[in-house]
Structures are given as structure tokens and as C-alpha cells.
């Protein structure tokens, strides 16, 4: 199998994740885009592992590490989302501007 097939698949999935992060307004849907991007990176790790056939299996091990970090990230992010929902009553990322730089804020 040509190596660029899985790499191209990873590129497409990553750009779809970028689109989801940029276009969605609901914070949970933004997190789904982040998950797609993390999976695209994992495909790269596994593809290069299969190509190099390294004895340490660094690619697959790093894919496992990325999955664990993604699990930690989604747990923390959902706790933050639920806290935002309790304090604001919505999780629309366009309207959450408390941390914005007031001077540079486009009205």
C-alpha cells in the first residue's frame, strides 16, 4: 500500500476537524472537531509505525498515549462546559467573551 494513502486520509480528517472547530457554535460540537483532529494525528503515527517497522513500536505507543491524553482532555473539557452552562445558561462559544481583550475586541 502506498504510504501516502493513510497520510492523505489523515490530512482530510484533520481539515474536517479544523472546519468543525471553526464553524460550530455549540461547545460540545467544537469538542467533536477536536476529537477528529486527534484521530487524524493518530493515523499518521500508526502509518509511520507500519512503514518504519521499528522494533520499539514508537508510533503505536504514541498513538496509545495520544488516546489517553484525549480522554483526559475530553473529561476536563466537559467539566468546563458543564460549569459554563451552570453559570451562563448556554454554551454558545460566540457569546462567551468574558476573557476577551476589551480594547482589541471587535464590536
Amino acid at each position: 500500500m502506498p504510504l501516502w494513502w493513510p497520510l492523505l486520509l489523515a490530512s482530510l480528517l484533520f481539515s474536517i476537524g479544523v472546519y468543525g472547530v471553526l464553524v460550530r457554535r455549540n461547545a460540545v460540537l467544537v469538542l467533536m472537531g477536536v476529537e477528529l483532529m486527534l484521530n487524524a494525528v493518530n493515523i499518521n503515527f500508526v502509518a509511520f509505525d507500519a512503514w518504519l517497522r521499528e522494533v520499539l513500536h514508537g508510533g503505536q505507543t504514541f498513538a496509545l498515549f495520544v488516546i489517553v491524553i484525549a480522554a483526559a482532555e475530553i473529561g476536563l473539557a466537559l467539566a468546563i462546559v458543564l460549569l459554563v452552562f451552570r453559570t451562563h445558561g448556554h454554551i454558545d462559544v460566540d457569546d462567551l467573551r468574558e476573557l476577551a481583550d476589551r480594547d482589541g475586541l471587535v464590536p
Partner: protein
Amino acid sequence: MTWVQAIFVLLALVAVGSALLVVTAVNMVHAALWLVVALGAVAGVYLVLAAEFVAWVQVLIYVGAVVVLLLFALMLTRAPTGRQEDLNLRRVVPAATVAALVAVLLGTTVVAGFHDVRIDLGHAVVGSAETTGTTLFTMWVLPFEVLSVLLLAALVGAIVLSRLRTDGDD
């Protein structure tokens, strides 16, 4: 085209198609369920690329835990289960432009860089539970332990965040 390549192309098409549905669905629950299909297809891609253990971990953690967490978050934030036309009305064109630029840039880079390299899947060492466990606990023990500390920190952080009171009485 061999059978392996045909299966890979099929799984890749399923993954890309369902990922597109994840970011374009007007029903939030449907988006979460299409995410299951996309992540399952990626697990199949791992199986084709001889990463057996990673594929099952993907099914367990992503398809099992992460999607359930996302569905719980949708439920707890009282997300409407019906159609919502205003999920992504604004900024569709700039977001699509940026995403297309990313896709073209990354795609041309990897195709130009690796167009004559082939993966020899016939002789690849299958990353079974035995081989992955052996390498993980001989060569990658220290990162593994650091990762468990990270998971503990994330656990404590999530508990602290969900115990916060809005009126500051604790």
C-alpha cells in the same frame, strides 16, 4: 488493487464521509452518532495498518467512553434533540476556506513527500497486545507513569471544576 487496499479505501471513504456529517449535521445527537461511525472506521484503518491493540483501545475509549461522555454533555446542557438550523450558520465560508487550505497544504505536502514510498504490510509486525505490552513496559515505562500522573491530575481537576459553586460559598 489488492484486498487490503480495497478494504482500506472503503474504510477511508466511510471515515471521511461520516466525519463530514459530524461537522455538518443540523441535529446534535446525530452528529455524536456519526462520530461513532467515523471513529469506528478509523479503528478499522488501524487494523489494516497492523495496529491491532491500538484499534481495540480506540473502540473501547473513543467509541465507548468519549462518545458516551459527549452524549452525556449534550443531555446535561439540555441540548435540543430536534433539528437546529442555527448550529453553524455564521462564518461557513471563511471556515470552509481555512479548512480547504489546510487540506490542500497538508495533502500536497504528504503526497509530494511520500509518493514513492510503500508500506510492506505483508511483513509488518502486528501490534498485538503482547508486543505492545512488552514494548510499553520495557522501553516506555517512564512516559507511561508520567501519563498516569497526568490522568490523576485531570481527574482531580474535573472533580474540582464540577464542585465549584457559582456564588462562591465554598
